[in-house]
């Protein structure tokens, strides 16, 4: 059966890799690439998969935008079956110096957006009595590094939301899981120097960063029929760092 997959933050390295993984491994699926202003890379991917991948404008912090996106997906084909809440960003500062809006922006984009997305996606999944939600959390939710009180709290919140919603939706055939990626190639702050990256790799048991497709593979598995008894789980994918 054809599935509609919605991936937010689809112009970023991880979002693109997840989208491409679905498109390459599941011939019948249709992938919707949730984007905001930056859309050049998502457009490139959609052009490579005509008729199977489409961009969808989605401001993830806006509940009405979510409703419109889910409705649009329904009009274009199969109802939404898989939601990957991938959009997010961090804006680091020590708590003592953190502005109120730095806190709020990060909580809005990383935690409140997941709430809005799940709430928008659930009715369609409940009607189908099946669905897969995969929330992209972060290793920061577990390791809570200094300078990331906002981001760590938001991502830890995502794990809590995931576990609670999993209990609420289990009997409806809907699974809700989270993954916690570590450092990902292409997802690191551009201001980090080569020396810094080199030193960082030395601290990693595998001495390399994750390739985006290594995270995408786990997301794809959690969204597959093979993962039907896995719900409320958090999968750490960090090359053994923690």
């Amino acid at each position, binding site marked *: 059966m054809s599935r509609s997959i919605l991936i937010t933050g689809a112009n970023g390295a991880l979002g693109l890799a997840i989208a491409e993984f679905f498109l390459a491994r599941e011939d019948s699926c249709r992938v919707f690439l949730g984007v905001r202003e930056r859309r050049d890379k998502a457009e490139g991917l959609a052009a490579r998969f005509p008729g199977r991948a489409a961009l969808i404008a989605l401001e993830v912090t806006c509940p009405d935008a979510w409703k419109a996106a889910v409705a649009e997906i329904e009009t274009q084909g199969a109802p939404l079956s898989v939601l990957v809440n991938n959009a997010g960003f961090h804006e680091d500062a020590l708590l003592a110096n953190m502005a109120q809006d730095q806190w709020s922006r990060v909580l809005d984009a990383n935690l409140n957006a997941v709430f809005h997305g799940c709430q928008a996606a659930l009715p369609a999944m409940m009607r189908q009595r099946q669905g897969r939600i995969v929330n992209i959390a972060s290793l920061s939710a577990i390791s809570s590094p200094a300078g990331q009180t906002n981001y760590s709290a938001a991502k830890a919140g995502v794990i809590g939301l995931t576990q609670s919603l999993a209990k*609420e939706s289990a009997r409806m055939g809907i699974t809700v899981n989270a993954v916690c990626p570590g450092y990902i190639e292409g997802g690191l702050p551009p201001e980090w120097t080569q020396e810094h990256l080199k030193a960082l790799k030395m601290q990693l048991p595998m001495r390399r960063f994750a390739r985006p497709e290594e995270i995408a593979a786990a997301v794809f598995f959690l969204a597959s029929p093979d993962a039907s008894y896995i719900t409320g789980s958090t999968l750490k994918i960090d090359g053994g760092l923690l």
Partner: protein
Amino acid sequence: MPTRQRLKELMISELMLDMTADEIGDDTPLFGPAGVGLDSVDALQLVVMIEKHFGFKMADQDQAKRILHSVNTIAEAVDQKATA
């Protein structure tokens, strides 16, 4: 199939209840330990199930609370809507 029997069979399959239709009394409270033992998650599913299979949409939470009391109260609401 009579509405009450259909409701019971739907409840058993959709709420994944490990019981038979005969074990659910028409007047047995659906929620709480003294009754069938459904919980708040089941309530949400019941609302969706009734809308999907009988085309009956709950107006608000108060109405849902009244109607979802037992198989009888649901059947009455559903049948009333069908004849309205």
